[in-house]
Each structure stands twice: as C-alpha cells, then as structure tokens.
C-alpha cells in the first residue's frame, strides 16, 4: 500500500466516520435499526452538489444537506412513532422513497463537482499536499462534531434519549416523552449521515444517485467492529471506537485492493473485505481465549 492510498483510506474512513456516528446513534443509542441512511447519505451529497453547481456557497450547501438529512430521519421516525409502522420497515420505506427524491433533487443521476468551488477548494492552495490537507481538515470537523455529540449525549436531553433506547417503557414511566426523543435522535442521526454524504461528494468530485448503496453495511461494520475492538461503557469511548472502526474498515479495503499478490482478483474484493472485517470482529475473543488458556 502506498502512502497516498493509505492517506486516501484515512480520508474516506474519516468521512464515513460521520456515518458511523449516525449509525451509532440510531442502532446503539436508540436501538432503532435504520436503513434510511442508504438514502440520506446520497441525499446529503445531492443537496450539497445541486447547491454548489448552482453557484451557491459550499458552507451553505453543506448546511442544507444536514437539514435535508435531518428531515429524512424525522420522516422515518414519524412513520415508526406516530403511524406505528415497524422500525425496520419504516426505514426501508424512507430508503426506497429517497431514491426517487434524490433523482428529483439532482434532476439527473450524476452531478459532477470537478472544478467547482467546494469546502475543500481553499485547501488546494496550501503548500501541503491535498492528500494530507483534506484528511486533516475532515479530522478537525469530525473532532468538533464528536465533542458536541458527547456533550449532547451527556446532557439532560441526551440522557433521556439514551434511557428511551435502553427501556422505552421505563423512560416514559419517568416522564420522558419517548416519541420526541426518537424523532430528535433519528433527525440527528440522519443529519450526521447526510453531512458525510455532502463531504464525500465534495472531496470526490461528484454526487451519484447510486452512491448510497451499502452505506448501512459500512456504518454497522464500523460501529460493531470498532466497539468489539475497543470495548468501553462511556459514550466517549464508544464514539471514538466507532470512528476507529470506520477508519479500520477503509484500511481493510485498501489492503484487499492490494491483495493481488496472493492470487486474488478484483472480483474477490468484497469477499476479502468481509473476511478481514470478520477477522477483526473475532480477534478480541481469540485474544481473550488465549489469555484464559
């Protein structure tokens, strides 16, 4: 693996770190399996790309992407909470609907941002290579978001949200409005995922309607993988573990891309990635067993 490929994996891992935080919020904190992310990731990309191509400010475009993602999350939560549609099914409905909505937002399946002014354009003129500048800038953003998320989840409302996910009946017995908590949590979760989508489109130079496929898989791999390697009960450890898992996943893909020396071919990529992630998942258990023996 070359240094540029390594830094590229870090950059993507950091961008998908926003997705991992979003999935952590829905899947772990709210206990809400949410497939909306497969639609809200490209939604964020689509909104930001349309705004930027139209000559708008990239900061505003990214902000609008976050708002759009939050709205997608609210729709899913509303279907689950108010219409009493099963969680998973409600999120599948959102995911399917978002495919059409994303096509409507973009007006076509692919919008190119090559050559437009994006959030990353000012970094191009720095003396540092973009391969280093981009990940550092994303890391800074991710650090701020992780810090704020931690503050929130340890605030009174955050504690109420966590209680809702742990035991909804008990939470509402203690006077917590669980519906509001699910709505707010899902909005926040999908806003984070859409932020990831907006950043992905801007750093990679295009938004494509198919780019959401498998977002939930990557997000879950990051959350479950990261937490199994870095177990811990505090929110800070858990969120950092998710980010670590996200970066690790991309490094695994990068290793799989370089696996041709052992006779593996391009079409084996997904299998190799799955095996590497699977290995990362069982590694802590193997270590524990060895220690016990």
């Amino acid at each position, binding site marked *: 693996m070359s240094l540029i*490929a390594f830094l590229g994996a870090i950059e993507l891992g950091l961008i998908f770190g926003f997705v991992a935080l979003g999935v952590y919020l829905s899947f772990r904190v709210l206990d809400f399996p949410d497939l909306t992310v497969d639609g809200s990731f490209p939604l964020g990309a689509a909104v930001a790309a349309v705004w930027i191509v139209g000559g708008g400010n990239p900061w505003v475009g990214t902000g609008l992407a976050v708002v759009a993602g939050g709205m997608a999350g609210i729709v899913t939560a509303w279907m689950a909470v108010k219409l009493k549609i099963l969680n998973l099914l409600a999120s599948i409905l959102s995911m399917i609907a978002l495919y059409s909505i994303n096509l409507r937002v973009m007006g076509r399946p*692919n919008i190119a941002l090559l050559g437009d002014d994006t959030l990353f354009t000012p970094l191009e003129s720095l003396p540092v290579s973009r391969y280093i500048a981009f990940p550092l800038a994303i890391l800074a953003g991710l650090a701020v978001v992780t810090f704020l998320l931690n503050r929130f989840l340890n605030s009174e409302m955050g504690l109420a949200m966590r209680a809702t996910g742990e035991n909804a009946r008990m939470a509402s017995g203690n006077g917590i409005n669980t519906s509001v908590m699910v709505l707010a949590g899902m909005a926040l979760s999908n806003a984070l995922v859409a932020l990831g989508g907006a950043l992905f489109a801007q750093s*990679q*130079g*295009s938004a494509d309607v*198919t780019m959401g496929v498998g977002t939930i898989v990557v997000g879950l791999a990051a959350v479950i993988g990261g937490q199994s390697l870095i177990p811990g009960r505090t929110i800070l450890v858990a969120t950092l573990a998710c980010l670590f898992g996200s970066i690790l996943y*991309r490094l695994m893909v*990068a*290793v799989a891309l370089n696996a041709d020396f052992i006779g593996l071919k391009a079409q084996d990529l997904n299998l190799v990635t799955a095996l590497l992630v699977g290995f990362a998942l069982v590694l802590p258990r193997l270590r524990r067993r060895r220690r016990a023996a």
Partner: protein
Amino acid sequence: MMMRRRLLSAVLGSMLMAGVAQADTVTLGITQIVEHPALDASRQGALDELAERGYVEGDNLRVSFENAQGDTSIAAQIARKFAGDRPDLVLAISTPSSQSAAAAMSDIPIVFTAVTDPLLARLVSDLEAPGGNITGVVDAPPLEAQLQLIRDMLPEARRLGVLYNPGEANSVSQAEKLEALAPELDFQLVEVTASRTSEVMGAARSLAGRVDVIYVPVDNTVVSALESVLRVGYDADIPVFTGDTSSVERGALASLGFSYYDMGRQTGGLIARILEGEDPGDIPVGSVEKLELVLNRGAAARFGYEIPDTFLGQAVEIID
C-alpha cells in the same frame, strides 16, 4: 503475538510488492465500476489492441485491474491506490470510475472509456482539445441512425416504447436525446422506467398494447434483464430493437451500433499513442466510428415479422 507479527509482515510485504515496478515494463492501472459483459468486453478490446501494438500483458505490460463492485466509495479508494502506485497510465471504465480517477490524479495520464457524456460528467471541457491529463472514447450510441433503422424496417410504427433506469446517467442522457429525435422521425415516445433488474419485467409488461415497437437503449439494468423484455415482445408481437449489438444475439430483432469490444480497441489505440509520448490533452475525445447492422432472423419470426431482403443484404451479421 506470533500471529499478529505474521499478519503485520504480510501487510508490510504487500506494501513493498506494490512499490516495486520493473523499469522496462509499462504499467497500466484499470479501474472499472462493476463487472458487466459490455464493460468487460471494452477492457478486453483495449488489452487486445495494446497487444497488437506491442504491449503484451505479462510480458512488457503490467496490468493492475481493480473493480469497485458497484460501490462509488471503493472507486474513490481505487483511484487513490493508483494515485499512490503511479502507473504509467490509468484506464477508467464507466462514468463514476472516471470521475473518481479525475478527482484523485492530475499528473498521471487518464484514458476513459464507456462514458456517454464526458462534458456533463466534467471530465473534459472541450471534446476537441481536452487539455489536462485526460482523454478517452465515448460510448454514446448513434441514436439518430438507430431510430432511422426502426423507421425503415417498420414504416407503420408510431408509438415507440423506451425502457431505461432513471438512476443511470448514461440512460437519462439517451432518453433526453430520444425525446428530441422522436418527433422528427414521426414517433410518439412512451417512456417507462425500472430502477433495478427485478422491476424490468413489470415495466416491460406495462408497454404491451401501448406501443408498436420497443427500443432498449444502452442501459446496464435493462440490458441485464433483457430476456424479460423479449418475452413481452414475443408474446405481444412487439419487435424489440436494442442500442447495443450484442443484445441481438440474445434475441432482439436488430441493432445498428457498435460493439463494446470495438470501442475498447479504439481506446487501446489512444492508450498506445499516449504511451508513445503524445500528450492526452492534445488528443480529441473519440467516438466509435464503426457501425454494424446486426439482425436476428429467428427472433424476427417470434415477433411475427419478416425481415425484408434489403436489410439482410446490409447486415454485417445475421443470427438465425
């Protein structure tokens, strides 16, 4: 501990192996969005053309082929891998793979292929003088010639059904062009869409009774499920024309087009020119010149249509 050390050395080994390249061989990185018969054929065409021009894979040409398996974030990682490995040239197959290659590399020559609209995709700003480090071959099907063929073979047909995936950039741009062309040739366009292969059957059925002829553009989703369109055509006696010639072998009536293999050959020619020292920015973006009429006589019978002799005479290939 032992195991971890072995894993570490395997990873380090791969890093080293990727870094070593022999000086006298030419290295070519290929990034392709997904495995697909047409895209694979274009890749093969490029490699065959290169072999004919003296760049033989495994001999003096080292090819690193990566496939994103349909995932754009992996296409981005593949582009970064090549940006780091620094092959002599990168061949990017399909629009998303070309865009991620263009975003990641500004100093390694890139040749794209199987891109329908490189202007809209922002790969180049001028087809005649692309500038920068990128040029390629477009796969825009000759829609006007194809509609003319349908008009000539079916003078009575009025309602033209078109089936495509609204999520594919290439298909949408074809549909837009068809909308503009149809009235000129006295066709009334009926569009139906299918977002995935499992929806193609239903979409095709909805055309039965509403159209006189069906045209399937170059669309990955619909072409993958072509048999479900053909079945509707056979049952309802609606002839099916396709944008790509290889679909005629599978049972469509006719196509006037180019093969992805020939497009690949042309792309291979561009690659060879750049390897010999030409600047990609000076090479105009090409389109496939060689058009071939392919007919399927067996399928014609199943559509309840008899192919006039004049067309049989013009055909490059007739399938029975």
